[in-house]
């Protein structure tokens, strides 16, 4: 069930969130990220995948090898959904704010856990979150 890097995998259930974690861990290890950075990226991916599933009504994830500044190897992950979108991105990224019953740390935490973070959302059209982590 492992997809080659660059392929899209669906996120349509909680089991898919588990699969996302495994795929990201494999990709992060292959890119030469340290154990701490692997864990951070996997955790960020886990948060974002769950958001895609729970708030975006399901979507896709694409994980790919990428090269950062000064040619550092790393991993870039794109989560996309066609859900309701985020009305107030500023608020969603603020710590402790949750639209559900969670801790409200997922999105802001994912931003802190990654080296590169990009969130694009349009109300009614969906949300795309891109994160990347580079080897040190």
């Amino acid at each position, binding site marked *: 069930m492992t997809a080659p890097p660059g392929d899209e995998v669906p996120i349509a259930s*909680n089991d898919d*969130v*588990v699969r996302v*974690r495994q795929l990201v*861990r494999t990709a992060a290890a292959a890119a030469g990220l340290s*154990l*701490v950075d*692997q*864990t*951070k990226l*996997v*955790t960020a991916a*886990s*948060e974002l995948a*769950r958001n895609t599933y729970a708030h975006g009504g399901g979507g896709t994830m694409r994980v790919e090898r990428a090269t950062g500044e000064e040619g550092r190897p790393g991993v870039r992950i794109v989560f996309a959904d066609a859900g309701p979108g985020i009305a107030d991105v500023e608020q969603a990224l603020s*710590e402790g704010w949750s639209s559900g019953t*969670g*801790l409200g*740390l*997922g999105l*802001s*935490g994912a931003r*802190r*856990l990654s080296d590169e973070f990009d969130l694009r959302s349009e109300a009614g059209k969906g949300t795309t979150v891109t994160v990347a982590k580079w080897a040190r």
Partner: protein
Amino acid sequence: MTDGAAETRITDLLRSWREPVLDRWVELAFDAVGGRVTERELRTELSELYELVERAFGDDGAAMGELRATLAELSRGRARNGFSPSETAVGVFALKQALYERIRTTRDQRAYNDLIDFTSFVDELGLATFETYAATREQVIADQSEQLLELSTPVVKLWDGILGVPLVGTLDSARTQVVMETLLEALVDTGSRFAVIDITGVAAVDTEVAQHLMKTVMAARLMGTQCVISGIRPQIAQTIVTLGIEFGDIATKATLADALKYALDRSGVRVTGGPED
């Protein structure tokens, strides 16, 4: 596509050749399943099917429904008993060969032509069989993962009054519910005042996992039990800090041994005779 005459013709052939075609069908299907059902059982199953096929192909709507139900029942049984997909499907497809062989000996050109319609009819039945088979296998897998869920959340006694809950794998809502129930029940049964939840085997602690852990600890606390979370590895600790999760006044330890020592100290047990540290 099918005209009534063709159907009637094949139906006639099926009726008049019942014995030899059924014999051959049983023979072919028996070869395919490799002796895992007796020939007699197979004959009983297939002769029932044969009769239904004969009626269903002759445009008997009620027989068609019955045929589908019987086939579904048959393939569910095959799937549950570990037969392979092809073993299951060949049982149906073999009817084509049995009838074809028979028609070939007669060199009846019209029967040949009519056979095409019958072939696609049997193919359709075969596919339906396959779908039921796959659905049943999926159900089996779902049942197994549920069983695994129960199995993989043991609560063990570490010491008098101290329980251990080793968690392995992923901690989702369903799993947490099982862990919480098992732990709370064990607390009542044993009257333990301490519980050590060990997360060494949990690959990643994200906000959901953390929240589930905290809920479990709170529930145990309401019952008068103090929980210690152990097995927090360096990479997990750093990630938790970066995420911004605060465990508040919940005791956490790096290793299960530390947590056990903590709980022993707290319960007034003195361990002597060990190596000095």
